[in-house]
């Protein structure tokens, strides 16, 4: 029985990680947002399963927050922004897909290498969860630096946040307050980014951050 429970927890957490890699690979903005929504759904499933495994009913609330806020509200809002800004056809990458994926794989390997010995004595569920969560965080960061569009950078940031939630729920005894605050911070960050993106758009007619750099009087350079 316990192996099955463990396997299911593993499956969900691994799903979040796989979707992170998928996020990294997407070219189009609409696809990125869709994959992000899917990741949030899988995350909420994972959190819900953790609440069953740990017998912690308050994690259900976290799962619901993740599902509603990140799986529903934020993707819908992002879709609206993208439609309004008329950037849904744009392909924007600073680094090509192949190298990015290779780097992502390296990061996953690194995080497993790093976490495995640290929490050797801990409960195996938590251990796997931590490795996956660290990988998700690193992949989110990688996404933020490989993209050139403000909207996809926002998505990268929020997928990073997903990794944090995954880590927080993997450990036993994480109080609800923390998760609520994490959810709130994501929401606020999202609002700020939204306003910010609209402002950029109003002023420069694009959400390509390179234009901002030109505005600051710098050379246009590509990595």
């Amino acid at each position: 029985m316990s192996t099955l429970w463990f396997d299911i927890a593993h499956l969900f957490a691994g799903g979040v990680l796989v979707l992170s890699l998928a996020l990294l690979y997407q070219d189009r903005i609409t696809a990125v947002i869709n994959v992000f929504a899917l990741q949030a759904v899988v995350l909420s499933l994972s959190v819900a399963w953790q609440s069953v495994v740990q017998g912690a009913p308050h994690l259900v609330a976290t799962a619901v927050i993740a599902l509603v806020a990140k799986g529903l509200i934020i993707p819908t809002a992002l879709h609206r922004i993208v439609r309004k800004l008329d950037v849904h056809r744009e392909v924007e990458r600073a680094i090509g897909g192949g190298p990015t994926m290779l780097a992502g794989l390296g990061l996953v390997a690194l995080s497993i290498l790093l976490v495995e010995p640290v929490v050797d004595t801990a409960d195996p569920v938590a251990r796997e969860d931590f490795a996956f969560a660290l990988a998700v965080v690193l992949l989110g960061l990688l996404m933020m630096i490989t993209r050139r569009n403000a909207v996809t950078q926002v998505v990268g940031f929020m997928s990073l946040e997903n990794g944090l939630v995954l880590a927080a729920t993997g450990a036993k005894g994480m109080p609800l307050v923390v998760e609520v605050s994490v959810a709130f911070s994501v929401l606020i960050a999202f609002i700020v980014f939204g306003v910010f993106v609209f402002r950029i758009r109003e002023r420069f007619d694009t959400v390509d951050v390179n234009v901002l750099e030109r505005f600051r009087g710098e050379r246009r350079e590509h990595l």
Partner: protein
Amino acid sequence: MPEVAVALWCIAGFLGAGVVGAVLGNRPFATPLVYGACLAIALLGVLVALGVLFGGAPATAVVLPVGLPGIGAHVRLDPLAAFFMLVVDLGAAAASLYAIGYGRHAAEPRRVLPFYGAFLAGMNLVVLAADAFTFLLSWEFMSLASWALVVSDHRSSASLRAGYVYLLMAGFGTFCLLLAFGLLAGTSGDFTFAHLRTAGAGETATALATMLVIVGTGSKAGLMPLHVWLPLAHPAAPSHVSALLSGVMTKVGIYAFIRLVFDVIGDFSPWVGLVVVMSGGGTAVLGVLYAVMQRDLKRLLAYSTVENVGIVFIGLGLALAFRANGQGPAAALAMTAALFHVLNHAAFKSLLFFGAGAVLAGSGERDMEKLGGLVHRMPQTAVVFLLGCMSIAALPPLNGFVSEWLTFQAILLSPQLPQWGLKFAVPAVGALLALAAALAGACFVKAFGVVFLGRPRSPAAATAHEIDAFGLTAMLTLAWICLAAGTLPGFVIDALAPVTRDLTGSALPAQASLPWLSIVPIAESRSSYNGLVVFFFLVASGSFTAIAVHRVASRRTRRAPAWDCGYPLDSPLTQYSGASFAMPIRRVFATVTFGVHETVDMPRPGEMRPARFRLRVRDPAWRFFYGPLARGVERAARRLNRLQFLTIRRYLALVFAALVVLMLVVAAWR
């Protein structure tokens, strides 16, 4: 009430005086009120310190419930702390008395009064602190308060520059001390001195911490090449504060060195002694060479402080070397010499700065080339200033001679040391010390002669007036202290006995009970000195000569041209000037060391323009140490400046790369 409680109340009183100064600073009565209060509190502090030194009471410690939560502030009053508290409060009392009158000259008293009280409180607290946190906090408090005093004349760009350099050096010194404490404490997290004494940080960490302490405290005390802030900052402050900075605050730096190396670290190799002795010797010679070449009176005094700090560090280095070799009595002799010189320098350097302040207040000048002949206008100041000059030039029977003589006695014991390097190096440093003492004599002949003798070189000097009674009393008191410590050194040495016993494990034999009040540091057969006999001999022979001259010589008044050295011209410019006095020394010693550059611009026959002589002197510390350092920092800063203009994405990438590298390190390390 235990002594340490009284000492703490004194600190609170100084802070209170500072607050009063901040609130009432603009009222005319605030200046005498604040300085009067500081004088009373400082005298109380002197009494407490004397009580501890002579009373032989055991060290008392208190933990105050302030500071970091759960740790508190540890303070402790042991003989070493009491001795330096005596030095601090003696200087503070004299400066406060002096400033009751002198403070009237301050343009903006509110820029001086609040920080004056805070500065005194900070210095007292450093001496009492018994844990690293309290120590560093009060150390920085002292530095910042004194910085505010240095830049109190905020309209002159020179004092702002001095303040900037001082702030940099003070920050650097504190940084070194911070690292040293970190090394000593290791991972234990207990920063009380009592714990650090027993912690035993390991050989490498202790050696590194010792070097950091030398650099950190040396930068406050003025050890070469960390002295550069001192000749800039000390003259920039008002004169009574200059006296405190030069006479007292450098001693707090020396205190920190003694406390940390001898007491807290306690376990060092003899080579540390060699490093300290060599740097002390270099500091002494270079400091006094530079002092000889100054034309600003206060700068001359500040450089002479560098020299005296060097002398103290020679004594301390010898004490380190002797103690590391287990030679207790010799270490006690060297330590006594160093501490005695600390007390002496506090007395005569304060006296000299007061004199410079009196000259500045009376004539408005501190450029020696514009002074002269002040002995007629300021006779009382001239006499006490002369006494101060004689003390600092180490003439018997004054106090400077005793401490330098004791230092030489310690140097003469160096053949006892087993290390050959020390055996050779210490006599060489002795030669340096002798050179420094001789040059100090020349330096103060110049200071006194150019300022007080001859004819006035400017109208300001010709119309100078004597300083007020408070200032004169302060200077006279210090002059008496110099004379008393010089003629009765046995009592001072006996008072230092508990301090040296704590630091070196032994003390000099009791001196006050010896016949005729002689001092015999080692053995009668080796050396002894009697200041009182020298004093009476000088007085008797001087009086005898005077009487003889009056009786035997003709009483008829004769008039002859003064200073008529073959130039019977009226202009005071034909006199010997300070620069011409220093010229031989400059030519012999300083041409290479200081990169002296002389250019003479002589007009051709028939040309009407005046001839010009230009002299440029550069401190080698700036040339060889700070110049390259500043250039290196600037180059690195220009490289790093590009980071200012990266894109957001690249900033993120930098953070990300740093994170990944750190993780790789962690992963690889295990």
